[in-house]
């Protein structure tokens, strides 16, 4: 009367095989194709995975995207340099501040604009706050994908809300901040705002402790995520993966240290590294990165100097960089975000190209998913941390 242990569900799908056309049988068992998405509840937006299954094991996975393609790069080539700034908000709509920064950085490189010190501090503060809110919502979503009925996600969103409130009182918008300008920022931060930010940052480690007590040592989470979706460091480097996904494989590569762009060389922080490159490592690396971000924020908020918030020489209207090309990159929360610009001296970029971390981290999805079950594919996708606005552009 007892079914065999292990995976009794192995052979289930074969029933449907006759009803739906399925590719030819191999080695005696037939395979089933399942199309997960574009409106599947856990594909994080309009993303589709064409999965070929043997039992519940994935034998082939084809990511299909482009449902959200909006011609971002071409639009940017037909609008002014300033006009693309609000569009960069919509690339990775979780992290508009870092998107702004990366774009502003490349335009500044292109036109040789100096950035005042205060503006650099403001940029570091907003970028690290962005990293906090991105990572916190990501781990919330990841645990939600594992089936934790919203509780960790709600806690994560409660904290994210505090940071979004800061963004709103600074830039006017919660997510589409459009805050950076070439040579600085759009408006100044007030002493009051810095105080608010300090209180949010002070309270954040306590929240992280709570969150970790809630879920980090949960046996179910560990069983679900450890040794699942392993990414080898060699493959990660070959595929150009960057950000926490790369660091979870143990590769020490953080642009804040490597490039030292902005004023990151002034702050004391460490780069956490994983040893296994599995889902749990990617989760924990993000938690640890948040703790480091809190350290950076504490230093930056304490040390912020007075001065201009934007280079007074930078022109808002009629901005024409000299002919040339530039590539500016930063360590966005999701990985290396770069903008490559070619100017022909006109008010519009001749070529505008985004290096989206989400898309490039997504290329290794199949390599991580093969041989795992379909339930793992969901959390592996969740652990890569993609935003379809950036993947499709």
């Amino acid at each position, binding site marked *: 009367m*007892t079914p065999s242990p292990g995976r009794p569900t192995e052979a289930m799908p074969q029933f449907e095989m006759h009803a739906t056309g399925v590719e030819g049988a191999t080695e005696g068992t037939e395979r089933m194709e399942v199309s997960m998405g574009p409106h599947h509840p856990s594909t994080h937006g309009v993303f589709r995975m064409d999965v070929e299954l043997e039992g519940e094991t994935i034998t082939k996975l084809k990511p299909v995207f482009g449902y959200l393609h909006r011609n971002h790069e071409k639009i940017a080539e037909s609008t002014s340099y300033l006009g693309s700034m609000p569009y960069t908000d919509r690339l990775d709509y979780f992290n508009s501040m870092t998107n702004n920064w990366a774009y502003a950085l490349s335009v500044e490189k292109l036109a040789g604009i100096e950035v005042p010190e205060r503006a650099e501090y403001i940029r570091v503060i907003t970028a690290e706050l962005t990293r906090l809110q991105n990572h916190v919502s990501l781990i919330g979503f990841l645990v939600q994908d594992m089936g934790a009925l919203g509780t960790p996600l709600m806690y994560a969103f409660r904290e994210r809300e505090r940071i979004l409130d800061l963004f709103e009182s600074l830039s006017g918008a919660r997510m589409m901040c459009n805050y950076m300008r070439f040579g600085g920022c759009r408006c100044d931060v007030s002493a009051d705002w810095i105080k608010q930010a300090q209180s949010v940052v002070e309270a954040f480690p306590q929240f992280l402790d709570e969150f970790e007590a809630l879920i980090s040592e949960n046996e179910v989470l560990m069983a679900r995520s450890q040794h699942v979706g392993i990414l080898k460091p060699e493959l990660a480097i070959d595929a150009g993966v960057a950000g926490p996904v790369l660091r979870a494989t143990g590769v020490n590569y953080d642009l804040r240290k490597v490039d030292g762009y902005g004023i990151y060389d002034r702050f004391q922080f460490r780069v956490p590294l994983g040893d296994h490159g599995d889902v749990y490592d990617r989760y924990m690396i993000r938690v640890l990165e948040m703790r480091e971000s809190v350290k950076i924020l504490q230093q930056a908020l304490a040390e912020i100097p007075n001065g201009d918030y934007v280079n007074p020489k930078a022109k808002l209207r009629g901005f024409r960089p000299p002919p040339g090309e530039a590539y500016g990159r930063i360590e966005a929360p999701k990985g290396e975000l770069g903008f490559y610009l070619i100017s022909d001296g006109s008010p519009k970029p001749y070529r505008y190209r985004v290096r989206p971390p989400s898309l490039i981290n997504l290329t290794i999805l199949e390599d991580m998913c*093969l041989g795992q079950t379909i339930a793992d594919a969901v959390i592996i996708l969740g652990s890569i941390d993609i935003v379809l606005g950036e993947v499709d552009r």
Partner: protein
Amino acid sequence: MSLFFIITALITMASAIAAMTLRNLVHCVLCLTVTFAGIALVFLQLGAEFIGFSQILVYIGAVSILMLFALLMTRGGTELTLKRWDPVHWITGTLIGIAGFGVMSFAIFNSSLRQSKIPEAKADSLHALGNSLLSQYVLPLEVMALLLTVALIGAALIALPEKNVFRKNASFSKNQESGNK
């Protein structure tokens, strides 16, 4: 012969016939389940609570599910492809049925059960059942238990996950190799 028994018997027989004649195998199994339930009801009417509920637990809860699983794993639950009126099948089936029925009725008519009146269920029948199972019939019980354990271990062995062979097909690594060539 109460009205209730007649209804039960009719349902049991009707579903048994349906289980034989329906073309969709899953429907057949579901009808068979109704037959099992009917038999359990007959047991209950005879006052054999333990056997009746065991019948439900084992046959409806497990055996029919086992059949359904087996069905889905092998045939895919689609319609039977047999010709409906294959005379050879029907004649052999009828002969086997008649033979089985004859043997059964011969056994029943010659058994001692028919002579004696059916005893009323005792209040401590359950205790008696348990005692006899663990004293008089302990050896058959142990043998059955051993057999089932062996079957369980065998099933577990068959179901052991095989080594993963899919990983080497990973698209990125493959593309990269072909790109390098």
